[in-house]
């Protein structure tokens, strides 16, 4: 078991690489799987010292989170699109919002940044040096406090579960 641990220190990463390889190769033949596995093992080993040390748990939470974000992206897309179209007549109520954070993990915070970026309507603008808060620019917000609460519950909490 320890030998396997040594060879495959990050099984998730290895798995992801194998999947990406097979998808890229556009072929599900055995040789591609083996080749993918080969790279999936070698690359994490080679870049071990350059790679993040992330513990990722709770696969179910991950799946649910991905679906949530995906759904939110689509919905927000239409909202922001509409806002853009009507912007010549009515500007959105955009403002900066400070969101206090409990998440501390590097990768978790990176994931949060990804989420805020890909979900239209929010722009990650600043992170306090002690990671205790972030500054978001929000496209259209009426009530700052409820937005913060909504944001923390919907996006931060699951990440905390996953990464910590």
């Amino acid at each position, binding site marked *: 078991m320890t030998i396997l641990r040594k060879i495959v220190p990050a099984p998730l990463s290895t798995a992801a690489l194998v999947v*990406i390889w097979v*998808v*890229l190769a*556009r072929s*599900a033949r055995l040789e591609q799987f083996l080749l993918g596995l080969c790279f999936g093992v070698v690359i994490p080993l080679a870049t071990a010292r350059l790679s993040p040390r992330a513990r990722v748990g709770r696969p179910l939470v991950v799946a649910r989170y991905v679906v949530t974000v995906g759904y939110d*992206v*689509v919905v927000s*897309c239409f909202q*922001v*699109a509409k806002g*853009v*179209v009507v*912007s*010549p007549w009515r*500007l*959105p109520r*955009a403002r*900066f919002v*400070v969101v*206090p*954070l409990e998440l501390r993990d590097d990768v978790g915070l*990176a994931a949060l*940044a*990804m989420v*805020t*970026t*890909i*979900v*239209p*309507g929010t*722009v*990650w*603008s*600043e*992170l*306090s*040096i*002690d*990671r*205790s*808060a*972030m*500054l978001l*620019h929000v*496209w259209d917000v009426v009530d700052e406090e409820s937005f913060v609460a909504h944001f923390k519950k919907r996006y931060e909490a699951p990440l905390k579960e996953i990464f910590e």
Partner: protein
Amino acid sequence: MTGGPLWAEAVAAVLLVTSGVFVMISAFGFVFLRDFFLRMHPPALAYTLGSWSVAIAGVVTFSLLDSSLELHPWLVMALLAVTVPVTTVLLARAALFRQRQARAPDVPAPLGRLGPR
């Protein structure tokens, strides 16, 4: 062009049109909104729906073409989700910095150390 069934072609066509429309809207917003932070929002439309619909159209088209599931266009989607934030985060931070330097109005103060020490 493609040998796939019409429905698939229709799905792909709709997705492509969607992509085009969203890209147009995002570009429109990017050009005509007057505040930089406002302008940072519309590109997200293109980064997300604009590309996702193309990726799905690609998956549909290629899968039918090769009569096997071809997921590689999806890879573009996934990679974009990871990489796009880097530029956005840095650019927003840079804009904030420059606006603070210029002492522009309506710029929030630096966050500094907010939480409990």
